[in-house]
């Protein structure tokens, strides 16, 4: 029971196997390829983001650098301009003022250029606006620093310009020491150049660092110079991770702020010791990751769907001819031998189908053959049976019995009928071909009894039977035909009384049966052909010498059979050689 269950689980249809393997292979390949692609994409987009972000920060840096450079150049040219003037006459002042105004107008984003004395008075200024009257510049850092550190350039952080009336621009200020002449006396003062911050501001605002990324600027003391969320930071609603920025002077690193991973890019600005910090949120990269993942997922699902359908179709196509073959074989199994396959398909299947057709035809032929053989066997069995019964002999004998009965020869009738019965019993022998020698002799005896009555006083007979032969086996119906021959061909036409002798003995390790008659004999030419040429059954049972000989040889082999000796007018001596076969 266990075995059959095991067997059933093992055999799956070809279609299923093909589909299954297609899908399996495709899924594995898809998964591997997807994972590789996914990782690659991810890494590429991460790198892209890093590179772009670095470029953005770099761009801001370059612009800021250019900005600072311009301010420095302007301050240099002013210094040169002023130091080359040496008179404090009104025209000269006006001339100087004019020059400075030209410089101012030459650049759109210059807001003001002014020179102050060490006591805080405005010496010269452009544009020519009045100073706010309640201004105390002495304490302001742009004024103080160049005084305390004479050869430095001071850069302020972005602020609202508040020196001149009606001016509230956002500017970055550069201040430095400057020498000017009044009436030939050199004085040191402070040069202040204010440049509009709006360009830098819009640049920083528009820096594209992913969806949520931004750029901010810190100075050398790690104070915020500019931050897009400055107001929120001032109000305490937001904070910035300046601690790490202080530690990492410049470069690229990741930080973790408010449970969010961010990419930080820091670059230094030349000349003013500011640093630009770019912040990119990892989430933006993750969003890309999710997008890619979903894309690949959908792609894979569609691909699997297509593969399933295609593999189902392909496997159906492949297995269809095989299925047809299977069906026909089942038909054949159920006994229909007229199946003939006309299958198109793979080479192997077509070959199978052709071979199958040939096989079916062969089987059909074989079965026909068997039928024919069975038929002929039945016929020959019937013939044999018929021959054993010999109608002529039967009619004649029955006639004799009737005659005897009419003539009230009761004893003769009893003898005849008894002999006849015994004869036929042994003749038929319940279909057996091999009987004992005793029975065969008995058979011959009964035959002779009957013939003796019919051919009254025509012949006599004598049996010489060796005791040790009685139990041996022999083919049946070998004595009677020969005796019949002896009577019809040998003795019937004799004038004198005939004599028939039947002997049995064991000679040369073989069973020897002899039939000797003193009849007409057989011509020596005839003897040769007697065993080979088919006799016409003109008289008698038709089972002639040839038949007996053939049967013996068929049954026992070529070394046994009939030996015929005969002399015309003298008699015939037939020897039957048989093997010794013991009976039980």
């Amino acid at each position, binding site marked *: 029971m266990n075995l059959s269950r095991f067997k059933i689980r093992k055999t799956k249809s070809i279609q299923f196997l093909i589909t299954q393997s297609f899908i399996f292979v495709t899924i594995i390949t898809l998964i591997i390829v997807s994972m590789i692609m996914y990782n690659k994409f991810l890494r590429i987009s991460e790198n892209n983001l890093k590179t772009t972000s670095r470029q953005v920060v770099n761009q801001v840096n370059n612009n800021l650098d250019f900005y600072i450079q311009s301010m420095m150049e302007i301050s240099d040219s002013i210094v040169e301009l002023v130091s080359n003037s040496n008179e404090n006459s009104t025209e000269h002042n006006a001339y100087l003022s004019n020059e400075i105004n030209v410089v101012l107008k030459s650049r759109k984003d210059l807001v003001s250029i002014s020179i102050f004395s060490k006591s805080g008075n405005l010496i010269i200024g452009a544009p020519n606006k009045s100073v706010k009257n309640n201004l105390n510049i002495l304490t302001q850092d742009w004024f103080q620093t160049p005084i305390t550190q004479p050869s430095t350039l001071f850069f302020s952080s972005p602020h609202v310009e508040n020196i001149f009336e009606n001016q509230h621009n956002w500017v970055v200020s550069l201040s430095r020491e400057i020498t000017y002449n009044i009436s030939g006396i050199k004085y040191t003062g402070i040069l202040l150049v204010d440049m509009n911050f709006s360009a830098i501001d819009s640049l920083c605002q528009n820096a594209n660092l992913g969806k949520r990324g931004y750029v901010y600027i810190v100075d050398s003391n790690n104070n915020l110079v500019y931050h897009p969320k400055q*107001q929120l930071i001032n109000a305490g609603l937001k904070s910035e991770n300046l601690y790490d920025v202080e530690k990492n002077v410049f470069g690229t690193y990741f930080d973790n702020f408010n449970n969010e991973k961010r990419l930080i890019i820091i670059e230094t600005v030349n000349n003013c010791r500011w640093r630009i910090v770019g912040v990119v949120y990892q989430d933006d990269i993750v969003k890309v990751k999710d997008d890619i993942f979903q894309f690949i997922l959908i792609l894979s699902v569609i691909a699997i769907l297509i593969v399933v359908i295609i593999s189902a179709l392909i496997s159906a196509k492949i297995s269809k001819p095989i299925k047809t073959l299977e069906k026909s074989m089942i038909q054949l199994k159920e006994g229909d031998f007229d199946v003939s396959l006309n299958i198109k398909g793979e080479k192997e299947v077509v070959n199978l189908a052709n071979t199958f057709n040939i096989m079916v035809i062969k089987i059909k032929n074989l079965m026909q053959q068997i039928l024919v053989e069975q038929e002929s066997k039945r016929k020959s069995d019937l013939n044999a049976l018929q021959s054993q019964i010999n109608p002529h002999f039967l009619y004649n004998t029955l006639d004799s019995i009737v005659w005897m009965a009419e003539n009230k020869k009761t004893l003769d009738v009893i003898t005849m009928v008894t002999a006849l019965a015994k004869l036929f019993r042994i003749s038929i022998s319940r279909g057996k071909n091999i009987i004992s020698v005793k029975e065969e002799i008995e058979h011959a005896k009964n035959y002779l009894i009957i013939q003796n009555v019919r051919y009254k006083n025509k012949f006599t007979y004598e049996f010489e039977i060796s005791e040790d032969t009685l139990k041996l086996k022999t083919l049946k119906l070998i004595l009677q035909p020969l005796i019949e021959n002896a009577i019809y061909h040998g003795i019937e036409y004799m004038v004198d009384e005939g004599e028939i002798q039947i002997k049995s003995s064991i000679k040369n390790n073989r069973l020897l049966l002899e039939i000797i008659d003193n009849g007409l004999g057989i011509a020596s030419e005839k003897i040769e052909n007697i065993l080979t040429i088919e006799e016409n059954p003109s008289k008698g049972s038709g089972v002639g010498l040839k038949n007996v000989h053939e049967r013996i040889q068929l049954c026992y082999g070529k070394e046994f059979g009939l030996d015929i000796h005969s002399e015309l007018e003298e008699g015939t001596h037939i020897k039957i050689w048989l093997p010794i076969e013991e009976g039980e």
Partner: protein
Amino acid sequence: MKIKVLVFTIQFILILFILSCNSVSNNESTKKNISLILKVNSGHYWGTIKLGADMAAKEYNSNLDINAGSIDTDIEHQKFLLNQAIDKNVDCIILDAIDFDELLESIKKAYSKNIPILLLDNEVDSPYITSTINSSKDSGIKAGEFILSTWKESCNMGIINFSRKDKSALARENGLYSEIKKNLKINVVGLEYLSDSNQSYLYTNNLIQRNPELNLIVALNDAVAEGAAQAILEKKLTGIVNLVSFDASSLEIKYLENSIINATIIQYPFNIGYLAVKYAIEKSEGKDIDKSYTIGSKIITKENMYLQENQKLLFPFIK
């Protein structure tokens, strides 16, 4: 049997497909839509709120619509804008109402559609309102505190308000009163509701004439402050008749620099815009938010106006 297996496989794959499509579309639809309706689409206040609101929208990845009429008393237009937002089925509405009672019906409609509404500057306790973000009352309180600390001994003040109906105007007034009533030596000699600087100019002149002991005027917004300042300047009463104002228009800043205005109280419109949008988004995402938020305000004087942190407040735009 094999048909069953095939069908099952296809079903399974379809489910996977639908799930993945779902999560894709989910990502798209998680972007919330916020509608911000202000009183007027010009001016310093509007511009700064917009900056803060935009920043929050960008940071929290949501869509933001900012609308307002061109006149800050045009209640009909504001009603229209509110209904428009409700019809668009936005996720949350932030409203700076010109007149709360006029808009109540539309507000109820929004409530029935499950659209939460955040009110700016309106301490109304209505079941239809999810939350209020207030700062005007606080600014009134700060003004009161400044006055208490500066003119402890005696103070005869006139109050010029800019609207009888505007809740933020009333909030400022209430805040102011809540402080000054603590000092019995402060007298309010006049209280008027005027709508522009011209009216305020005339009224100030009048008030000065009628009240020679007047030493302080409190003007509750930039328009009326400018009128009052002009009157004081012309009468050369700078320093005698002091002026405390609200907001920081460029004229007010000039007056502040020239000591005509002693102090001005400013709110944080940038922060208001930012926080309003932030809370609106949080509410749309299903998180709980407080029933009311108070965002502070600051006293600006000539001395502190150029400090780093105040510069950004007074001059939010880089020109």
